[in-house]
C-alpha cells in the first residue's frame, strides 16, 4: 500500500531494492575487479541506510556508524581487496552446468522465498520498514550463499561473504536499530578481522597454486 509509506520508509524501500539489484549484478559478472566494485557500491548504500535510520530515529550512534561503515567497507576494504587481486587472473571461472541465466533464475527463486517468509511475520513495532527489510536482508543472505557456491574463486567467495554480511548489516540496522552501538561496532570489527584472515588464506592459496581458484580443493572428501 504505497500511499501509506512515509519518506523514510520510501527511502529504505528504495535502498533495499537497489541493494538487491546490485547483488544480482554479481551473477552476471565474471571479473574480480567488477565483484569488488559491486561490493563497494553496496557498502555505500548500506552506509546511506544507516545514516537515514540514524537521522530518522535521532540516533547519533547510527550516524557515526554510517560514517565508519563508509570509510571501512565503502573505501578501505575494496582497496585492500583490489591490492589482493593484483597479479592474479582477473577472470572468474564459471561452473560448467550453471550458466549466468540459470544462476539468475536460482537467485530469483531465493528472493521469492525470502519475500514469502517475511510475509508470514508481522514484525510491526518500531522497526523502520519491517516487511520489505526482512525480505531484502534474507534475500541478500541467500543470494550471497549462492554466489559463494557458484563461483569457485577465493576472491569471489570473499566478496560473496561480504555482500551477505552487508545484507545482515542492512537487516540489523532497519529491523533492530536499537541494538547497542557497541554491537554494531563489534560486527564491523569482526568483518574486518575476518577479511584479514580470508586474505591470509587467499595469499597462501595463490602462493601454493599460483591462482585463486578453489577448484584445487579436492583432497578432503568422505
Amino acid at each position, binding site marked *: 500500500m504505497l500511499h501509506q509509506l512515509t519518506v523514510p520508509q520510501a527511502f529504505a524501500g528504495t535502498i533495499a531494492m537497489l541493494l538487491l539489484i546490485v547483488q544480482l549484478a554479481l551473477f552476471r559478472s565474471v571479473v574480480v575487479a567488477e565483484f569488488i566494485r559491486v561490493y563497494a557500491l553496496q557498502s555505500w548504500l548500506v552506509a546511506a541506510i544507516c545514516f537515514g535510520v540514524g537521522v530518522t530515529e535521532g540516533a547519533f550512534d547510527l550516524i557515526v556508524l554510517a560514517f565508519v561503515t563508509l570509510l571501512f567497507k565503502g573505501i578501505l576494504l575494496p582497496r585492500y581487496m583490489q591490492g589482493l587481486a593484483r597479479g592474479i587472473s582477473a577472470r572468474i571461472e564459471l561452473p560448467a552446468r550453471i550458466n549466468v541465466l540459470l544462476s539468475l533464475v536460482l537467485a530469483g527463486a531465493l528472493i521469492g522465498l525470502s519475500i514469502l517468509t517475511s510475509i508470514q511475520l508481522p514484525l510491526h513495532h518500531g522497526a523502520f520498514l519491517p516487511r520489505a527489510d526482512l525480505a531484502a536482508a534474507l534475500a541478500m543472505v541467500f543470494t550471497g550463499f549462492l554466489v559463494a557456491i557458484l563461483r569457485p574463486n577465493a576472491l569471489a567467495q570473499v566478496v560473496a561473504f561480504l555482500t551477505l554480511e552487508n545484507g545482515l548489516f542492512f537487516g*540489523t540496522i532497519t529491523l533492530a536499530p536499537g541494538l547497542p552501538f557497541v554491537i554494531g561496532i563489534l560486527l564491523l570489527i569482526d568483518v574486518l578481522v575476518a577479511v584479514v584472515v580470508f586474505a591470509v588464506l587467499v595469499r597462501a592459496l595463490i602462493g601454493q597454486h599460483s591462482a585463486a581458484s578453489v577448484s584445487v580443493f579436492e*583432497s578432503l572428501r568422505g
Partner: protein
Amino acid sequence: MLPAAVIAIPFTAALLSMLLPSRVSRVLTGFAGAATAVCIGSMALAASKGGGRLDAVSALFLLPVGIVYGAVGVYSTWYVRAESIGSDGDERYRREFLALTNAFACAEVVVPLLTNMAGLWVALEVTTILAALLVRLQGTDASLEAAWKYILIASCGLAIGLVGVVVLYAAGVGPLGSRYSPEWAQYMAMAGRLDPNAVRLAFLLALIGFGTKMGLAPMHTWLPDAHGAGPTPTSAMLSGILLSDALYVIVRFAAITNDAVGSGMTRTLFFVVGLLSLFVGAFFLLRQRDIKRMLAYSSIEHMGIVACGLAFGAPLAILGAFLHVVNHSAAKGLAFLSAGRIAARYQTREIEKISGAVAVLPFSGTLFAFAGLALAGMPPFGIFRSEIMILAGGFSGRSWPIAALVLALLVVAFAGIVRWVMEVTGGDAPKTMQRGERDIGAIGSMLLISLVVLGLGVYLPEPLEHLLARAAFILGGRG
C-alpha cells in the same frame, strides 16, 4: 572476580606467548590451562549451590572449557617440542601455535559467560576466525583447504544465526521498547508477549546458523576436514569445546522459544537434525580410513545424540543430554590427544598403517582404547551413563519409536568405532617401531582427563547433579 580471571588467564597467556620464546610460553600455557580449569571448577561449584553470578546453563557449558583447555594446555608442553615443520619455521610455528591456542581458549571461555544474544554471536564469530588460523597453521595443502572450507561455511552459517538474533530482537521491540539490550533474561521474562511467529523463525535460523558451528547434519561438512587437518590440540578444542559452545547458544534460543510458543517446535527440529546427524555420523564412521576424521564423524554422531536428548523433552533425557555434553568433551579430548601421539609416532593418520599401538605407546595406546570404548558407549564410562539417561527418557514417553531408532543408530556407530579402535590398538606393531613413552606432560594431561571420562561413569558428584537439574529446569525439562 572468577569470571574475569577465566578470561584474563588465557588472554594473558596468549599475549605472552607472542613475546616469549616457546620453551617458556609452553610451560606458561600449561599453567594457564590448569589455572583456568581450577577457576571454572570453583565457578561451577558455586553455581550448583545457586550462588555466584552465573546461572546453571552457563556454569555447565563452562565445564568442557575447563576440562579440555586444562588438558590441552599441559599436553601442549609436549606437543610443541614434538611437532616439527622444518628447522627455520619451528620456533615461529610454536609461538604462533601457543598464542593462537590460548587466544582460542579465551574466546571459547567467553561464550558461556555471555547471556547477551548479540554478544554471543560476536564471541562465536571470533572463535571461528581463531580456529581457522589454527587449522591453517601446519601450512599443508590439506590444512589450507580445511581452513578455507571452515571459515567460509562457519561464517555463512553464523550469518544465518545473526539473522536469528535480529529477528528475535525485532520480536522483542513490542514488549521491550525499540532500544534495549538483547539480554536472555529479558526475553525470558517477556517470553509470553513476544510475537510467536518471529520467535519460531528466530529459533529456526539460530538452529541452522549455530547448528553449522555445532556440526549438526546437514550443515556438518566443514567438521571432518577441520578436525582432521588441524593440529591435534586444536582438534581436541574444536571438538571438545567449540561444539558445546555453539550448543550453548542454541540452548539459550530454545529456552526462549519453549517459554514463548511451547516446546513442540524445538523438539521437532531437534529430532530432525539429531537423527540426521546420528545417521551421517554412524554410517560415515564405518568407512573412515583416517584416525582423526574417524573421531570427527564421532563428534557429529554425539552432537546428534545430544540433540535427540533435548528433543525427547523428558526431564531425564534433558539431564542426560546436558551430562552428555560434558562426557563427550572429556572423551573426545582424550581421544584426540592420544590419537595425536599415536599418529606422531607412526608418522601417519591412516588407520590401516597403524597397529599394536598399545605395545608401542603403553599409555597413549591404552588411553586411546579407553576413549574409543567410551565414545562407543561402553560401560563403565560416563558416556554410557548419559546415553542410558537419554534413551530411558526417550522410551518413557510417546517418542519411543524414535528412541528405538536412536538405539539402532548407536549400535551402528558402536560397531564403527570399536572396529577401528581394535585395529589401531591391537595386533602386532611394526618391528622397527620405537617402543615406550616418557613425556610426563602429555601422559599426565591424558591421565587426568581419563579420570573424568571414567569417573563420571561410576560416580556423579552431587554438585554436578544439582547443576544438571538447574540447567534442565531452565530449558523446560520440568516434567
